[in-house]
């Protein structure tokens, strides 16, 4: 009885823990910081100054995101659905939305009922 109570009172809790399924954190700060294995423990100023002025697929600096073209998410600009009575012609859309031209092979395949694919 005494042994049981002693044992229950001193139950060991492992230090190692199951951390669960690994997942990408929802919020990540991508601003440049010093690399964990850096011998100097510091990052040159050039990293911050480059980002402040550089353009790569849009400005890199966080502060400039709000005021320029592309600084606002598409969703925030409202729906692109045509209003009642309004129609878009496919020809007005960028070419990537256009119909792809038929190739001769496809035309032949249709006309021969698929036989040309095995010719």
């Amino acid at each position: 009885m005494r042994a049981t109570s002693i044992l229950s009172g001193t139950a060991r809790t492992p230090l190692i823990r199951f951390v669960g399924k690994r997942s990408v954190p929802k919020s990540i700060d991508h601003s440049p910081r010093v690399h964990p294995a850096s011998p100097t423990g510091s990052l040159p100023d050039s990293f911050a100054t480059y980002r402040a002025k550089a353009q790569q697929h849009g400005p890199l600096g966080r502060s400039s995101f709000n005021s320029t073209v592309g600084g606002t998410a598409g969703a925030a600009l409202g729906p692109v659905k045509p209003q009642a009575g309004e129609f878009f012609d496919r020809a007005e859309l960028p070419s990537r939305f256009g119909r792809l031209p038929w190739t001769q092979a496809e035309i032949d395949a249709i006309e021969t009922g698929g036989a040309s694919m095995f010719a």
Partner: protein
Amino acid sequence: MFRAVLPRATPRSALRHAGPRAIPNNFATSMIFIGQSKRGFASEAGDHDLVIIGGGVAGYVAAIKAGQEGLKTACIEKRGKLGGTCLNVGCIPSKSLLNNSHLYHQVLHDTKKRGIEVGDVKLNLTQMMKAKDTSVDGLTKGIEFLLKKNGVDYVKGAGSFVDANTIKVALNEGGEQTLRAKNIIIATGSEATGFPGLNIDEKRIITSTGALALTEVPKKMTVIGGGIIGLEMASVWSRLGAEVTVVEFLGQIGGPGMDAEIAKQAQKILGKQGIKFKTGTKVVSGDDSGSTISLNIEAAKGGKEEVLDADVVLVAIGRRPYTEGLNLEQVGIEKDDRGRLVIDQEYRTKLPHIRVVGDCTFGPMLAHKAEEEAVAAIEYIKTGYGHVNYAAIPSVMYTHPEVAWVGQNEAEIKASGVKYRVGSFPFSANSRAKTNLDTEGVVKFIADAETDRVLGVHIIGPGAGEMIAEATLAIEYGASSEDIARTCHAHPTLSEAFKEAAMATYSKPIHF
């Protein structure tokens, strides 16, 4: 009708290249076709999502991972063979020679007491080198296959920056190719550091590369540098019959990181095997004009000069980043005072789309560290999040017995002011080591005195390089020595020594 199963965004180029024969003839094959045409970020047909300069461990692992993640990837390598230093002139060939020279040495000196009578044992160095080359060839070809399997374009040539997104490749077979990429990874590795005044010809004055390809066993060999590379090569040639002397500037062998107590034991054991050591000694100058090479040495703190003669001198004083010919100035990528490319926590240089992994940047020059970084760098590109724990990177010296460690050593912990406990267990008290007649060495644990969390594990003994994986896992997951001690280990195995050392740290071992 055939296009019905293809998304509208399917690149026209993909369709164009497909040709009439590639038109899918049923739904299942159509879906495969879609999967293959799916790409990450590149917009133009000729652009790559990622170009990797260097096909060594860091480069090829990044290339495979990128291919798996659906990035249109190219990998540039000028050696003509993938795998870099590790596979071609480093880890892999050295392990082949270490293993086979150990077998030779064992057959020569360690069979009688085991009840094995052997006859005339001879060394066939040419065949030993051939066995090494076969291993290397098989592995490098295997990597080439893996790149192909994962859709990576393998470009044989030397890459250099034209601008921040353009790499010009001087092709090995002649001519030039230009690659454009949204992301670039520099993984050009490292090279052996030379010694001032000694001209490396890889025949008489050699680096580790030459030490893996000697055509005959030198009578006398001097190794400058008692780090891991120096000691592994010293072991190989000493086992094969050379009279080897290791000159080390520091007071202990093994280089930085190896626990002083373990290093002392390693020196004693290797000394018994016939290697001579001159620690706390510096090489002042060398002369290779005669039939032998003479080195003038003296105590590191100053003292009487001594002359060492040798047929072959191995310079193993360290490695330095190799970034020659990349034209880094063109894009303004910075180096530190030791030539390492400066990066932030996501492996980005000043230019965020150019990343650096492996030996040519910060951290220990280890192949497994480079692999971890390569995977993390691709994850940063793809998901914005990657993971490398620099506190849990193991180091292994593949001598016999092997030496391996992970985490901090005792001197480092002492200096940090943390209160700690040490527990150790000798292999001489381990049943499996006894049956193997291979009992030299010890497992040493260092744990936080208050929390019992494992801070460092240091092993010298048979199979230490394999055993350190358990310690690395323990440190990665923040285990206590009691966690390990209460985990069942199979009997009779060498790993029981590991468990008993953990027991010795938090309480007492059973068998010692």
